[in-house]
C-alpha cells in the first residue's frame, strides 16, 4: 500500500539512489586481471625453476595509497629433480598506486605454498608491478623477472 507523503519521499529516495556515496570518492583506481604469462629463461624462486604463471587479481586503490583486494598467482615451475612443481601465491593487497605510465604497483603480504608438501609460508611480503601486458613480482627478497602476458588481460583504470 502506498504511504502518505509518497511524492516527497520518492523524490528524496530517488536522489539518494543517484547521489555518489563517500565510498566512491575514496577509490582512485582499480586493478583487475586474469591471465597467463611467461617468464624469460632463468627465472627461479627458492630453487624452483619457473617457466610462467597464471594470475588473478582484483584490487581497489584509494587516493591515500592504501588498497584493498586480492592477488593470486600460480608460478609454474620445475623442481631440482625435473618434476613439475607449482608455487601458489595468495596475497592480500594493502597498498597501491598508479604511475604516470599507467602501470600499477600493489603491495601486501601473501601465503606462499611451495607445492612441495610442506606447510605454506605465511606473511611473505610481496610487490606486484602490473601493466596491461606484463607483470613483475617481488616475493620476499626475490625479484622475479618480468613476465609477459600471453593470454587473458590485465585492466588498470
Amino acid at each position: 500500500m502506498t504511504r502518505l507523503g509518497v511524492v516527497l519521499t520518492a523524490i528524496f529516495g530517488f536522489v539518494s539512489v543517484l547521489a555518489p556515496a563517500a565510498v566512491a570518492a575514496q577509490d582512485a583506481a582499480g586493478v583487475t586481471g586474469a591471465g597467463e604469462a611467461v617468464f624469460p629463461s632463468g627465472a627461479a624462486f627458492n630453487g624452483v625453476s619457473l617457466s610462467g604463471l597464471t594470475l588473478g587479481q582484483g584490487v581497489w586503490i584509494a587516493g591515500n595509497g592504501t588498497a584493498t583486494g586480492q592477488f593470486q598467482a600460480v608460478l609454474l615451475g620445475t623442481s631440482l629433480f625435473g618434476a613439475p612443481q607449482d608455487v601458489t601465491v595468495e596475497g592480500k593487497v594493502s597498498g597501491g598506486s598508479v604511475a604516470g605510465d599507467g602501470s600499477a604497483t600493489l603491495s601486501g603480504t601473501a601465503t606462499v605454498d611451495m607445492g612441495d608438501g610442506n606447510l605454506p609460508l605465511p606473511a611473505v611480503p610481496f610487490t606486484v608491478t602490473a601493466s596491461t601486458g606484463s607483470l613483475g613480482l617481488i616475493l620476499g627478497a626475490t625479484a622475479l623477472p618480468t613476465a609477459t602476458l600471453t593470454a587473458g588481460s590485465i585492466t588498470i583504470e
Partner: protein
Amino acid sequence: MTRAKRYASGFLSVLAILLAIGVSAAWAADRYVATTGNDTANNCSNSLFPCQTIQKAINEASPSDTIHVAAGIYPEPPAGSPLTVNKTLTLLGAQNGVDARGRVATESIVTDSQGTYVTASNVVIDGFTFENSTNPAFTNYGILMGAGTTGTQLLNNIIQNNIVGIGLANSGGSQVLIRHNQIQNNNVFFNVCCAGGTGIYTDEFVSGGAVKNVLIEENAFIGNDDAGIDVSNTALPGVSGLDVSTNSFDMNGRGVVLFNTHMSTIHDNSITNSTFVGSAAIRLFDNNSNLSIMNNDLTTGAGRAIRLSFLGLVGGPSSGVVINENNIGTVGFTNFVGEGLLVEPGSHVGTVNAECNWWGSPSGPFNATNNPTGTGEEVVGDADFTPWLAAPAPGGACIGGVPSGKVTGGGQVRVNMTGGKGTFGFNAKSDSGVGSGHLNYLNHVTGAHLDCKVTFVTELTPTTAKFEGTCSPNSAAMSFMAEVEDNAKQGKNADKFKITYGTNVDEGGPGPIISGNIEIK
C-alpha cells in the same frame, strides 16, 4: 509383368497407402450455414443452399470438415439442448481470422441458452460470438470443452453474457489454444451458483481430471465479476503446462485465480482495476508449484496485487513461486487498496522469490521490518523483495535496496570434471545501488576470456554478492553475471565463485575456489 499390370499394381499400392493413412483430410468437405437457409433434406454442402442451423451442419459433417457460418443470430434449436460439436471440425464464423479484441462487426452469434458443448478433440472454433448461455441446468458455459477432450482451439471469438465464458479441459494430447478472444461480462448467476462471473473456468469436474498443455494468449478479459481465469481444480494432479501470457484483464473481480497448478507461467499480461475487495489481481491458493509470474503490469485494484493463501483443500502449501520483473503499482496514490504482495503464513514452502519487481517507487516496497522507508506497494509475509527495480520494467535496473560496499577477488576455480581451471580477478562496488568495477576471467581449458565492466551489483550481503556487466568486443561473450561467496578469511576451499556468460552457466560452481580469496566489505 506387363506394363498394364505394372500400372495396375502401382495404382493399387497407392490406393492401399491412402487408405492406410486415412484420406478423410484430403476429402474434407465444406458445409454452409446461414439464417436464411433450410435444414430440410439438406446436407449443407452447397453454399447456395445453406442449412439454417449449425447443429444440422455438424450432424451432416464428417470429421475434418469445415463449417462456414454466415453472420446472423443462431438460437440453435431444438430447445433444451446445447449446440454440440461431437466431431473433429473447424467452425468458421463471419469474423474468422479477425482478432475479437475491440471488434465491431457483423457477427455469427450463437445464443443457445444451454451453451455450446465440445465433445470431440481438436475442434477449431474461429470468429463467432457466443452469448446468453444462461441456463444452469446444463453446460453453464458459453463454450464448454468436454472432459477428456484435447486440442480445442478457440480463436477470435467474443464470449459474453454467459454464466461462465469458457469451460476448460485438456487431457493433454494436443495443446489447447485460446487466442484473440474478447471474454467479457460473463456474470449471469455471479455469486449465485456454478462459477458464475468467470471468463475461463476449470475444476476437476469440468475437466474430468488433469488439465495439461494450455496456452491462453492475447485475449481481453473484461468485466467478469469473479475472475478472468479461475483454475479451481482441487483434485490431484491438477493443472500443468498452463501458459497465460500477453492478455489484458480489466475490471474483473480478479485477473487469475489458481489452485493446484504446476510448471506454469503467467507472463506479460496487463491486469488493471481488479474489483474483488480483499482478494488480488493474481490470487494463489493451495498447492501451486514451479509457477513463474513475470513481466506483468499489475495496476490498481480493490484488493491486493498478488496474494498467497493456503486453505487446506488440496495438497500442501505452494512452492517454487517466482515473482520477477513485474510492475506492481505506479507512482502515486491510485494503486492497490491492499498490499502489493501478501504471503500469508503457511502459504508457501520457504521464502517467495520476489526480487527485481517495480513496486511503484524507487525506494522500493514498504515493508515494516526490512524496508520501512519504502513508499511503494506494501510487501507482507515471507518474501525476498531485495533488490527491487529502481524504475519500471522493462529497463529498470534491479539495484534497489542493495547496500553500499565492495567486493574483490582473485583466484582459481575448477571448470570441468578433469581438473581444468579458470582464473578470475575482479573488483566490484555498489554505491547505493550504482555498480562499478571490472572483471577479468580466463578459462585455461577452452581459452575463453572475459574483459568486462561491472555495471550492476544486484546483491551485496556480508557473505554473498552478485554482479553483472558488459564485456569488451574481444571477450568470449557480450555480458556476464557472477555470483560469489565470502565464507572464510582464507578463501581457498571455502569461498565460491561462479560465472555465467554466453551459453556457459555457473562456470566455476558449485564447489569452492581452489586457490585465492574473495572479500566482501
